[in-house]
């Protein structure tokens, strides 16, 4: 087993034994997305208009809920030290942490989104675009959030600081993610928005693990 896979295996088996942590962010997403139609009432046109935005904001907040724990647990019990000391490069191990964060708190949201989208009366094409935008967007949220989590590691009141640090950086993902569905509804096609999301994802995939690794080294000094 390579070091990269070992980190993923550990994070996934820990999540299996502490299911509540994974379920919290998934249920949060479901509840937030379910509250809006209840609050607004059965006004189909309004719901269709706000649906993509609500689902995207819900996904964004749900993914942020579990960010604080991304490195904190490993920092507290000393496993982070051992990761830094490993022969494998730290950015690759951090990349594995980010990938498992996405598998546990991003992928479930992508899978649930079509069901929730039905509440907002989105049609099949819109749901397809929404899912595509979330598949590209949720890993981007994990990558950006990881940098914030690494920078605030060991800081008092890290949770609030983390939100203040990370939420503004989520704006481009939100704009292009929710915008993709609206562009498709307006007949413009979603490919431009999705391409930009994909480009942001690639850039973040290159730089975020490296930035996290640097921040984690500083946190451990």
């Amino acid at each position, binding site marked *: *087993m*390579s*070091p990269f*896979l*070992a*980190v993923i*295996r*550990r994070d996934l*088996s*820990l999540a299996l*034994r*502490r299911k509540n942590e994974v379920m919290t962010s998934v249920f949060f997403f479901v509840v937030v997305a379910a509250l809006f139609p209840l609050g607004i009432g059965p006004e189909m046109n309004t719901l269709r208009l706000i649906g993509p935005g609500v689902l995207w904001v819900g996904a964004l907040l749900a993914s942020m809920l579990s960010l604080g724990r991304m490195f904190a647990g490993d920092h*507290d*019990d*000393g*496993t982070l*030290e*051992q*990761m*830094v*000391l*490993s*022969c*494998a490069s730290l950015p690759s*191990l951090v990349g594995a942490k980010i990938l498992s964060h996405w598998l546990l708190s991003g992928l479930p949201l992508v899978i649930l989104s079509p069901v929730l989208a039905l509440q907002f009366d989105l049609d099949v094409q819109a749901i397809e675009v929404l899912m595509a935008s979330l598949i590209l967007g949720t890993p981007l949220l994990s990558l950006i959030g990881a940098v914030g989590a690494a920078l605030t590691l060991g800081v008092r009141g890290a949770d609030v600081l983390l939100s203040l640090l990370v939420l503004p950086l989520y704006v481009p993902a939100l704009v292009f993610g929710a915008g993709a569905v609206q562009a498709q509804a307006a007949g413009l096609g979603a490919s431009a928005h999705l391409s930009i999301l994909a480009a942001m994802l690639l850039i973040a995939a290159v730089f975020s693990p490296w930035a996290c690794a640097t921040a984690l080294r500083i946190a*451990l*000094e």
Partner: protein
Amino acid sequence: MLSVMDLSCYRGERRLFSGVAFQLNAGACLHLEGNNGVGKTSLLRQVSGLSPVSEGQISWCGQPIADNESFRAQRIYLGHDLAMKDDLSAMENLQIDAAIAGQAVEPDKVLMALQSLGLKGREHLPVRMLSQGQKRRAAIARLLTRQARLWILDEPVVALDVPAQAAVGRVLKAHLDEGGMVLFTSHQPLPMAVPSACMTSHRLQG
């Protein structure tokens, strides 16, 4: 072999120690002594490569330890935090730990390591169910599952009972006999059957 020359450590503006120098050859053991707060842990973290070295030099076989691949593969650091996940068993912890370090390990070897530290029958319990001393025994078993020549141990016998301390002594002696090196701090004398010729001590002063 490890050599430390003229090493200093600063915490903010305050100087913890300066001018520390020692050498550790194959088969040798160095006991780092000093009062609380004098910088023993900081020194061990510098030697292991966790903290950067601002003044002085640490070298492994003549090469500086920074970005030194052969050093990374040959040293192991056991700190105050045991690096054990509470929800995984000791067995799983050690296997995954070795894999993350880049050294795959056979399950049998892990079992033997745990048993030699007196954890027979508890290999598959979640670490959360173990006592403090048992957790530390499991963490020390990590030394046996990895092929490291230099062991850097921060207070390895804290919370251990007398038989476990003796077991640690045996583990260290076997490692030294094979030409390994040990650098450790401890406020208790280790019950070790190590010939005094291999054993040196260095007192750290602020």
